[in-house]
């Protein structure tokens, strides 16, 4: 079983979608329980990754490789390193919480919703462990179909616009990546990522391939200026869709950068580091200000997601600067590690924030900040969780939000204090928009009579929020296990950066 653990993780939820779908619209409860069962099974299976993976050794482990298309030398190749495993665990945990979170909320076509979630989960896990570029691309693109349906069927009033924009925007980026991959295949005769990493390429080739990859992944992350699909998608998506989108799908973009840009086009990456660093800083500072003025809570959190993902891209690309130009490998490792921790942390924090908004939306059916106020008077428990996640969102020490951002700022200080200065702005702006949000929603007098009738969170909601809270605190207080899990993988990535390919 352990030889095919990764395959199991991918196909178990996808196969689970079939019985859930067959439960039909007449038996929503059966669909819910079946979906939960498969999510839990997948989570339990993903826990086996930890003992199976030798963190000290690092590198790609648990490898599986079967010849998929013999005549083209395309493989069904899977493997995982510490980073993949951390992201897979994030995915399986979020999967359970999303199903529980949607339990009573999704009443219309429950079976299709749950089936789409299960399929999405399997495909996302596939992205995180594919070692063959074509296989990666297939998972990367196939993810769009269930998400398209999720936003379009169960979304808000402008869902059609949002979901079409989401699909076409993402497809736009990735099709050029496909062309780049085909070009690499034309040169190397294989899609195997390790072979592609060793493939010598001229600078011109690297530059073109770099921009094709960057476009695909920057849209997914999303980075400024190709971020405009995200606020729309988030606002219109159902709560579960938003949670998965923010918590896991955005990470696919940064994960892709690690697996494609870093090893395959390192020289072009070094050359254009300034571009990505500047874009990341714009995301951190400018998008932070944009978040400040939002009137819709979901939009606010969506923009804050973009700003936080800016830290991830900053951490990854600062490593180029540090290894190639300054030779400071330790700082590069720190920055990269910070980016990884930030990825996982943001997964939990943003997931939790969107769940909170979902809880409020289910009661009042509005996402506008001005409709709330004084919530703490009627929903004290909810207020407790909300404040905790808000603190994590603005990076308070002791929560997971702090660890990653701190590491990235520290690393960027070694590269250039100015970068660190701008990055550190987030501590002020982030606190600004988050605390102001809390102030307007939770504190103060109740001015909306409907708010006075709101009930505090149910046991089900407490479970979801409690799980998120536990994870956020655990990572904030004791990030060591996560760092240890990814440490050797990060070191290897940074070592790879130093290799010139021209």
């Amino acid at each position, binding site marked *: 079983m352990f030889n095919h653990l990764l395959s199991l993780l991918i196909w178990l939820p996808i196969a689970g979608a079939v019985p859930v779908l067959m439960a039909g619209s007449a038996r929503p409860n059966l669909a819910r329980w079946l979906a939960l069962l498969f999510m839990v099974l997948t989570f339990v299976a993903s826990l086996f990754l930890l003992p199976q993976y030798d963190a000290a050794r690092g590198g790609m482990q648990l490898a599986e490789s079967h010849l998929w*298309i013999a005549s083209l030398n395309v493989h069904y190749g899977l493997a995982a390193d510490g980073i993949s495993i951390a992201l897979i665990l994030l995915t399986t945990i979020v999967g359970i919480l999303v199903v529980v979170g949607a339990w009573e909320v999704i009443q219309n076509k429950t079976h299709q919703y749950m089936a789409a979630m299960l399929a999405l989960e399997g495909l996302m896990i596939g992205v995180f462990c594919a070692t063959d570029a074509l296989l990666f691309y297939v998972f990367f693109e196939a993810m769009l179909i269930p998400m398209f349906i999720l936003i379009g069927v169960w979304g808000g009033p402008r869902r059609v616009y949002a979901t079409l924009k989401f699909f076409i925007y993402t497809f736009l980026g990735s*099709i050029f990546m496909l*062309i780049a991959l085909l070009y690499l295949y034309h040169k190397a005769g294989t899609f195997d990522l390790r072979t592609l990493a060793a493939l010598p390429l001229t600078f011109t080739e690297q530059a073109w391939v770099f921009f094709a990859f960057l476009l695909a992944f920057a849209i997914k992350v999303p980075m400024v200026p190709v971020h405009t699909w995200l606020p729309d998608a988030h606002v219109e998506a159902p709560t579960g869709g938003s949670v998965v989108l923010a918590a896991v799908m955005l990470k696919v973009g940064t994960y892709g950068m690690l697996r494609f840009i870093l090893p395959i086009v390192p020289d072009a990456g070094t050359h254009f580091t300034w571009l990505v660093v500047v874009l990341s800083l714009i995301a951190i500072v400018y998008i932070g200000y944009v978040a400040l003025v939002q009137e819709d809570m979901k939009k606010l959190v969506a923009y804050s997601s973009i700003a936080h993902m800016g830290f991830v891209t900053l951490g990854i690309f600062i490593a180029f600067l540090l290894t190639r130009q300054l030779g400071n490998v330790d700082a590069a490792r720190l920055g990269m590690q910070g980016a990884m921790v930030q990825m996982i942390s943001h997964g939990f924090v943003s997931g939790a924030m969107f769940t909170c908004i979902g809880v409020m939306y289910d009661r009042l059916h509005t996402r506008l900040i001005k409709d709330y106020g004084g919530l703490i008077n009627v929903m004290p428990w909810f207020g407790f969780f909300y404040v905790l996640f808000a603190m994590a969102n603005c990076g308070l020490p002791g929560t997971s939000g702090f660890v990653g951002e701190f590491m990235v700022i520290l690393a960027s200080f070694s590269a250039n204090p100015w970068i660190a200065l701008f990055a550190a702005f987030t501590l002020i702006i982030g606190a600004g928009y988050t605390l102001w949000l809390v102030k307007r929603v939770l504190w103060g007098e109740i001015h909306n009579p409907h708010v006075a009738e709101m009930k505090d969170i149910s046991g089900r909601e407490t479970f979801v929020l409690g799980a998120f809270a536990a994870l956020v605190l655990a990572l904030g207080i004791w990030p060591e296990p996560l760092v240890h899990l990814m440490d050797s993988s990060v070191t290897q990535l940074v070592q790879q950066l130093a290799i010139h390919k021209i």
Partner: protein
Amino acid sequence: MPTLNDILVLLPEFYLVAAACLLLLLDAFMKPEQRGTLHWISIVVLLVATYLVIAGQPDVTVTAFGDMFVRDQTSEILKVFALLCTVLVFVYARPYLLDRKLFVGEFYTLMIFATLGVMLLVSAGNLVMVYLGLELLTLSSYALVALNRDSPLSSEAAIKYFVLGALSSGMLLYGMSMVYGATGTLDLAQLHAAVPQSAMPHLLVFGLIFMLVGIAFKLGAAPFHMWIPDVYQGASTPVTTFIASSSKLAAFGMAWRLLETGLGDLSQHWQLMLAVISVLSMAIGNLVAIVQSNLKRMLAYSTISHMGYLLMGLVNAGPEGYASAMFYAICYALMSTVAFGVILGLARAGFECEEIADLKGLNQRSPWFAALMALAMFSLAGVPPLFGFYAKYLVLQAAIDAHMLWLALAGAVFAIVGLYYYLHVVKVMYFDKPVEGGAEQSAPDMSMRVVLSLNALALLVLGVYWGPLLGWCRHSFGLG
């Protein structure tokens, strides 16, 4: 004198002629209430023909009737899929034809003759044979398009098809005569050998251009695509299904026979011409499809764009490119049978289900049909993991391998454009509210539902397990 060997090589074709003639007689002498059995007999006839093709498959290329007829692996694969697509058309057509009182013996006989035309065309070893097969196919198609003779739309489509088809046949014939003049032979293999030594290379290229017009017309590639939208919309849907599936396989076969086996040495001339036609088709097909409100017409423009992608494989002018183009043709045939099959399945007496708006809220009324259509749409759009993606990927690769990166980039850009209208259909089915008088669960014809479901699920299964099919395609062009 034909030898016994000649007849054995052509056994499937001879059998089909005999069967079609017998069907014609049977239809004439059958009591009206027994006519229903014609449907089953026709399907069995085609399945037996498929069996004969597969069972008699030669290990090496064989020729018959003085090299007029070539039986090689490429032709065998195309024949098998053309026959199977026609079977699919028959299965999907029955409830539709019964509802509209179009259930007549001629439909089956003409279809079988048209399929025979496909088989002769893809096996042609001689320019005359190409023309003969093509005419058998198109003449039967003209009559089929006009099958619903009380409908002005059908008659208009048939006339348009006939006039433009005759014109393009004329062009093709003119080109052939020029090529004959330059080389002195009609035999494709001899032609291939004679081209480099021709004393009149300009005449050859001149002839080539006219032949390309004929090929582009048959494929429905821009700028020779004008007949496609009208014919797709005007013809009764089963006939459209046939034109969009079996007939496209034939068009690929004809293009390959003429361009590679005949005029392969002129590839530096036709590569660029095909590339231009390819870009034009992708552009016109995808852009114009966006504004269509009629589903059949939209699918017609989508065909035009798909032919552009198919040509990208031919542009490569090497075995890998031909294999990818053939893969694309087969893939397209299977996808379009699903899309039109769903339209046929949802149509009922007095309701054609032709407008995209008719599909509104289909997911609420008939989730299964909505899912099948969604599979077809995502596959046509080329979204992995569906079958259509791999076909696109292969032709893009072929363009890059032929050092035509710009062509691949154009293909990528128009794939994004195309995505919009395919998604629009999914949007209408899944996100919109159902309307009165729209598509509902149709009358259950069990055989059709099962076959259509299998056909659609094949798009998913082949999306994972496409290696063997690609292997056959590559093998038939001598690749490992």
